[in-house]
C-alpha cells in the first residue's frame, strides 16, 4: 500500500473514533496528518511505505488516542447544553413578560368559561418555570465548578451524568412550562378573536416552542455523544 493510502487509512480510523465530537475530529485529523507527514519526511530510510508504517506505529492506537479526548469533550458539551438552557430560559422569560404586557395593553382577558382552567394552568406554568430556572442555575454552577480529568474514571463519569441530568431536569420543566404557556395563549387568543395584533403573541409563542425544540435537539445530541463515548470505552483494558 502506498504511503499516502496508509496515512489516509489511519486518519480515517482516528476520525471515526472521534465521531463523538465532529469539530474536534477535523482538528485532530489535520494535526495528526501534519505530524505523520513530518515524521515520514524525517525518516532517513529508503522505503516511504515502511516510513509511514513506522510513523503510524509511533503515533499510537487511534482508539486509545480518541479516549484521551473524551473527558474534556463531554464536559464541554455538558457546559454548552447547560448554557443553552439558561439562555433559553432568559429568552422565554422576556417573551412571557412581553406577552403579558401586551395582553394588559390590549385588555385581552380570558373567557370566563376558561377562567378555572387557566388559573390552575397559570399557577403550574409559573411553578414549572421557576423550578426550571432554579434547577438550571444550580446545574450550571455544578457544571462550571467541575474540573476536567485526564481520564474518564468512574467518579468523573458520575459528575458528567449529574451535569446532564440537571440540564435534562431543567429542560423538562421548561418544556412543560412552554407547553402550558402555548395552551394558555391559545385560549386567550381564541377569546380575543383573531386579529392582526394576535400575530405578535403567536410569534412569541412560536419562538418559545422553537427554543424548546433547540434544547431538545441539544440534549439528544449530547446523550448520543455520551453513548458513542461509552462505546469507545466498551473494550477498555487495564490502562484506563
Amino acid at each position, binding site marked *: 500500500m502506498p504511503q499516502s493510502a496508509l496515512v489516509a487509512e489511519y486518519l480515517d480510523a482516528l476520525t471515526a473514533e472521534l465521531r463523538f465530537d465532529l469539530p*474536534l475530529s477535523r*482538528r*485532530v485529523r*489535520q*494535526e*495528526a*496528518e*501534519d*505530524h505523520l*507527514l*513530518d*515524521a515520514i*519526511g524525517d525518516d532517513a530510510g529508503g522505503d516511504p511505505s515502511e516510513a509511514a508504517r513506522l510513523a503510524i506505529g*509511533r*503515533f*499510537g*492506537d*487511534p482508539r*486509545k*488516542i480518541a479516549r*484521551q*479526548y473524551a473527558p*474534556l469533550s463531554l464536559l*464541554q458539551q455538558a457546559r454548552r447544553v447547560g448554557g443553552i438552557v439558561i439562555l433559553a430560559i432568559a429568552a422565554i422569560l422576556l417573551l412571557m413578560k412581553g406577552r403579558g404586557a401586551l395582553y394588559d395593553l390590549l385588555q385581552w382577558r380570558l373567557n370566563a368559561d376558561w377562567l378555572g382552567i387557566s388559573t390552575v394552568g397559570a399557577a403550574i406554568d409559573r411553578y414549572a418555570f421557576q423550578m426550571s430556572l432554579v434547577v438550571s442555575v444550580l446545574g450550571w454552577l455544578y457544571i462550571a465548578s467541575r474540573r*476536567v480529568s*485526564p481520564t474518564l474514571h468512574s467518579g468523573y463519569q458520575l459528575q458528567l451524568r449529574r451535569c446532564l441530568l440537571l440540564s435534562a431536569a431543567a429542560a423538562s420543566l421548561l418544556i412543560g412550562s412552554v407547553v402550558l404557556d402555548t395552551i394558555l395563549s391559545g385560549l386567550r387568543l381564541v377569546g380575543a378573536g383573531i386579529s392582526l395584533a394576535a400575530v405578535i403573541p403567536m410569534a412569541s409563542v412560536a419562538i418559545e416552542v422553537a427554543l424548546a425544540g433547540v434544547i431538545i435537539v441539544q440534549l439528544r445530541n449530547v446523550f448520543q455523544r455520551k453513548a458513542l463515548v461509552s462505546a469507545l470505552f466498551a473494550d477498555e483494558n487495564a490502562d484506563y
Partner: protein
Amino acid sequence: MLKGHLDMIVLAALAAGPAHGYAIMQETRRRSGGALDLPEGTIYPALHRLEQSGLLSSRWTVGDAGRQRRIYSLTRSGRRALADQRALWQRFTDAIGGLFGETSHATIRLGR
C-alpha cells in the same frame, strides 16, 4: 509515570518558545536524551486539554511544506503553572534524594 507528568513535560518543552506538536515531541526526546520517548499521539490530547485550561494558546500557521499546522505557546498562566510544577518537582526530588541518602547511610551503619 510519564502519563501522570505529561502536562508538565509539554509545558516544559514549550518554555523555549512556540512550537507545533511534532517539534514538541522532538524537543522532549532531545532534552531528555531519549529517555522520555512518549507514544507520539498522546501529546495532542494533552495539548488540547492544556489549551482549554488556559495554560496554552494556539494558532494555525502555514509551514514550510505549505501545510497548515497548529502552533502552541505558553500563556501567562501556563508560565506560572510551569514555575509551580518546577518548584514542586524540585522539592520532591530533594526529598527523595535525601531519603535515598539517609537510606544509604543507614544501610552502611547496619552493615557494620
